[in-house]
């Protein structure tokens, strides 16, 4: 009796098993991987906020620093500076962030075309990383849809002090529980280095990113 031919999966796994000697305790081996890199930040709160803001400036992002009570004012200031009279509001944005005299459109499943025609989007975020100037968005129920933070040409993001981690490892640990929901990290506006290796702002994602930084 000849064995049935292996299907692709079995054959690939078979080849791997033949090629490597995978005996040994995998979990123990994994735990023994050296991790001597920096896993904890050491900065004081204000220094960390300043570093984050400086990194954002480097990306060409405007940063509006304010207190919790001033968020709506900061949003108004940012919108006025960009000559916006209204903007789409993503899931998870509290009403207290919205200033008067602007037109806000709730995202109740707006079409891509509607998002494309919009003046931008206001969102919160899950976390941020000071060292790299990175914002981490979490998607899924009660959170901004991926399309909402992508199709509009302008993204205004509110980041609160307690959301700012100094290093990427700290941030990764804090979002780990959401590892099965979609996550997007954003470090400055859409850009390309494809033309003579020079970073050019503004390709397909939002060409302008502004941040309201709350302490």
């Amino acid at each position, binding site marked *: 009796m000849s064995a049935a031919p292996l299907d692709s999966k079995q054959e690939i796994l078979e080849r*791997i098993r033949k090629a490597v000697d995978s005996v040994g305790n995998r979990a123990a081996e994994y735990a023994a991987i050296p991790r001597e890199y920096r896993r904890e930040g050491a900065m004081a709160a204000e220094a960390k906020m300043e570093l984050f803001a400086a990194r954002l400036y480097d990306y060409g992002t405007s940063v509006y620093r304010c207190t919790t009570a001033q968020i709506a004012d900061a949003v108004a200031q940012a919108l006025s500076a960009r000559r916006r009279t209204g903007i789409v509001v993503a899931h998870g944005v509290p009403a207290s962030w919205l200033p008067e005299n602007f037109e806000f459109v709730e995202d109740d499943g707006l079409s891509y075309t509607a998002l494309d025609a919009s003046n931008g989007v206001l969102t919160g975020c899950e976390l941020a990383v000071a060292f790299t100037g990175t914002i981490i968005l979490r998607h899924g129920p009660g959170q901004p849809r991926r399309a909402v933070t992508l199709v509009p040409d302008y993204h205004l993001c509110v980041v609160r002090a307690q959301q700012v981690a100094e290093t990427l490892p700290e941030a990764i640990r804090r979002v780990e529980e959401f590892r099965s929901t*979609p996550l*997007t990290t954003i470090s400055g506006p859409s850009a390309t280095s494809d033309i003579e*290796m020079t970073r050019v702002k503004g390709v397909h994602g939002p060409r302008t990113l502004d941040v309201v930084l709350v302490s």
Partner: protein
Amino acid sequence: MSVRVGKAAEAPTFAQAARGMLGNAQLRHNVRHATDVIRARRAHAVGETADWQQLRDSARAIKDHVLRHLDTYLEQFETACKAAGGKVHWARDADEANTAIVDIIRSHGGTEVIKVKTMTSDETGLNPALEAAGITPIETDLADLIIQLGADKPSHIVVPALHRNKAEIRRLFMEKMQLPELGERAEDLAGAARRYLRERFLRVPVGLSGANFAIAESGSLCVVESEGNGRMCLSLPKVLVSLVGIEKIIPTFGDLEVFLQLLGRSATGERMNPYNSIWSGVTAGDGPQEFHVVLLDNGRTGVLTEPETRPTLACIRCGACLNICPVYRQTGGHAYGSIYAGPIGAILTPQLQSMKHSQSLPFASTLCGACYEVCPVKIDIPEILLHLRNKVVKSGGAPLAERLAMRFAARAFKNGGRLESAQKLVRIAQKPYVHSGSIERLPGMLANWTQFRDLAAVPAESFRQWWAARQNKEKK
């Protein structure tokens, strides 16, 4: 079973191809300019990362670990991906992968697909397969768009159109996008691409991607990019297909903390690339509601077989070894005859094809060791090159003198234990056939490069010292 790496099997030898490239002054200028810019930026981004070496050590240890347990991690990935609502396909070779992808798109009656840069799809020759099936692939990465519109070939693994300068791109866009007017700044060109692709992003219902990392524990993929075309392809279509080489696995979500710190800095010299997308299966109310992963072997399990060559699979495709390589900078990427150019291409392309094709590639190096120094996952490319040269020589693929030289080197390698630097080894290897004065004439010599002569191009002094001195002289 047939392994295909783009059209590498049909490519001329490196030496033949390189000769043509060396005659093209514009191309050499473009490549040198672009790699100069990126090298300076990388050096700065790496310089401000105090724990760079520790990150490299961890990255390499993680990759080594994964490769030893690849079977287990792949099955773990499959289970988690399915649990999250994804479908997993396994492809032994390029044709199996292409067929699976064509079938998925056809089952939706799709006639177009939006693609975010995936080198793996270039490797399998997916675009021709799609076209043969009546499906139009739309490349959305700016560089890939430049390549596609110009019916050109990629020449770099991160910036595939690096051999094209601004003026050339502008002319191409004006002609192909039918723009009577277009500004000359890079911003204008990026803006033209934005307008050209936007309608397609919003309309085409099938997206296709590769992945930079596949996370075993959560069944997630991670795509690293800059322009936002990746986010468009990954989150707007109804159906998403991702083609992923089996070596892209990392064990845990937490391991991203290592790789995401290394990749952007190494690839484009940024603290972090503008966008990373991470997702697992499908998410109700957000993004594609049907998701397929095609796991591709295509020769990778063969590379796994030898412990000496296995680290080749640790590569995260950052391109740093290309940018630093004196040979790549002279010849550009096309000379390598493969979508995988530069030092990594010189070891990866022939191995994926079981050393049956592209046998001249392991000789397309001076073994100066610069690639190893910049590699974020510490792949000792010179060591692997020597190992592969040895194999080519043993199989009768090189003339007698070279065979002797290689054997000599191999013996020294064995007896000397693990040599500290590739340079040391090379100085031994080259002794039997140093050509008189060849070193003074390297760039000229490159033009006359015969297939197996390049070992002679390493001087007794460090190649890099010599090279630096020569570059300075050239500038003056």
